[in-house]
């Protein structure tokens, strides 16, 4: 560790490339904090949106026409308006309306980012789930019915396993998009990776270096996610399904 920081110090002195996050402990802790916040935010939002997305996809099939219309309106609304304006709407317009607890607002910028991104991602996930369930042929379900499966059993043992596999690529895409969208937290001062890096480069005046570090970091996160999802897809592979 010491030799790494010594090398980057030497690099700064000889070439002027100023990568403070490798030798300044304060900058490093800020950068790591930002990275953790980004990962945390993505993880919380993806779990919540998978849960709510499943509920919304289930409501799509409701017998109540008004419920279906409402759900469809929700999905279309969030898919067709700018995510940044949605975040502003929640943070600046809805935020001040909530009561304060002990002088501090109930939800901080991170809380509102979670709310806004969860609603956005729920709309996308619900569409994916709905499409996945619809891709299961009726004949397959009828075959399961003929074998005496109940509705719940059909979902658990027939529809869900097939739908999961067919939705995997789309879910992966969605997860990658989510990680990229967390950068919008910058606009409402969520201490995520971009915001923290912004603080570092405005103090150290090393915009170029931090930009390159940032891009490499985000692309690595996306790369790791892609690898993990590919591994999952391989693990879930069943003979006769796909290619």
């Amino acid at each position, binding site marked *: 560790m010491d030799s790494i920081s010594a090398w980057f110090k030497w690099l700064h002195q000889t070439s002027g490339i100023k990568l403070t996050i490798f030798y300044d402990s304060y900058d490093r802790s800020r950068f790591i904090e930002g990275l953790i916040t980004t990962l945390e935010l993505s993880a919380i939002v993806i779990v919540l949106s998978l849960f709510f997305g499943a509920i919304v996809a289930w409501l799509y099939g409701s017998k109540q026409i008004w419920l279906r219309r409402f759900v469809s309106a929700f999905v279309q609304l969030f898919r*067709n308006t700018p995510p940044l304006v949605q975040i502003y709407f929640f943070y600046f317009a809805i935020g*001040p*309306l909530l009561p304060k607890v002990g002088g501090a607002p109930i939800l901080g910028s991170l809380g509102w980012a979670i709310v806004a991104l969860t609603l956005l991602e729920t709309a996308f996930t619900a569409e994916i789930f709905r499409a*996945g369930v*619809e891709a299961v042929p009726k004949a397959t379900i009828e075959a399961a019915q003929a074998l005496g499966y109940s509705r719940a059993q059909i979902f658990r043992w027939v529809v869900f396993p097939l739908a999961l596999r067919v939705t995997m690529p789309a879910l992966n895409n969605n997860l990658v998009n989510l990680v990229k969208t967390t950068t919008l937290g910058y606009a409402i001062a969520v201490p995520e990776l971009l915001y923290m890096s912004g603080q570092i480069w405005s103090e150290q005046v090393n915009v170029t270096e931090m930009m390159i570090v940032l891009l490499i970091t985000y692309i690595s996160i996306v790369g790791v996610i892609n690898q993990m999802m590919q591994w999952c897809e391989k693990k879930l592979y069943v003979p006769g399904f796909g290619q």
Partner: protein
Amino acid sequence: MKLSVMLPFRLSPKPGELDRSSGGGLFVWQTGVLLFAALVVSVTAAQAQALASQASVFSLLLKWTPLLAQGFLFNLAISFMAMLLGTVAGVMLGLARVSLLAPVRGTSWVVVQFFRNAPWLVLLFFVMFLMPFEFKIGGHTIPFPDWIKSTIGLALPIMANIAEIVRGAIQSIPSAQWEAARSLAFNRRQILWQIILPQCVKRMLPSWMNWYAILTMATTLASIVGVSEVMTTVGHITAAESRTDFLIPIYSYVLLWFFLYCYPIACYTRRLEARFAER
């Protein structure tokens, strides 16, 4: 993706299926009506709280509409130019992806992966900070204002995604087309430009429109890096009015504007996709 045991995985249902899956052909107007109703409710609620001495929220919205429209038009201008730039560069990059030269293929792959996987906002910052504000060519100084830089920043991810669409479309053309063209003594350049690409246009159109809608929504990011577009205008307006009951109406109002612009594009994309899928 063809799966032997599954129906096609389709993110947007066919028009005929709409009745079953999402409650009637309500796509074009009912969602807009719902949003509009939410706006009216929030305006009325704000109205009820407003003091008698204050101007009505509705009249305030009306008063600021011309200014907002100006900002919004600027967003659209940025989106048009970024799309133009991104499409031209994207087609070139997409052709490089199917080049016969391995180094060209490899480099273009790296470029595409880089710009597809980097967050839009980071790319925007990158271009904003690292591009000069003017260019000196010979004795002339060509200024490079912020909005042009933000246009370039937004065009970069569009370029990479269009390149992927172009590559996908070229590879989806049956190889018989290539063989037939070759047997008629067309050379590779002629085959690509005169036979393959014209057939790709139809296949690419839905995804291209989808990316245009995404780009239009992303133009609001320019406000973060200091370009005065519609969100900057909203910031000025809320500061000028400094009324908390005005916040929800004005943000809903801007959301409605974007929705009314992007939603018809999404609907039309869906219709085109369904029509092409049937053939």
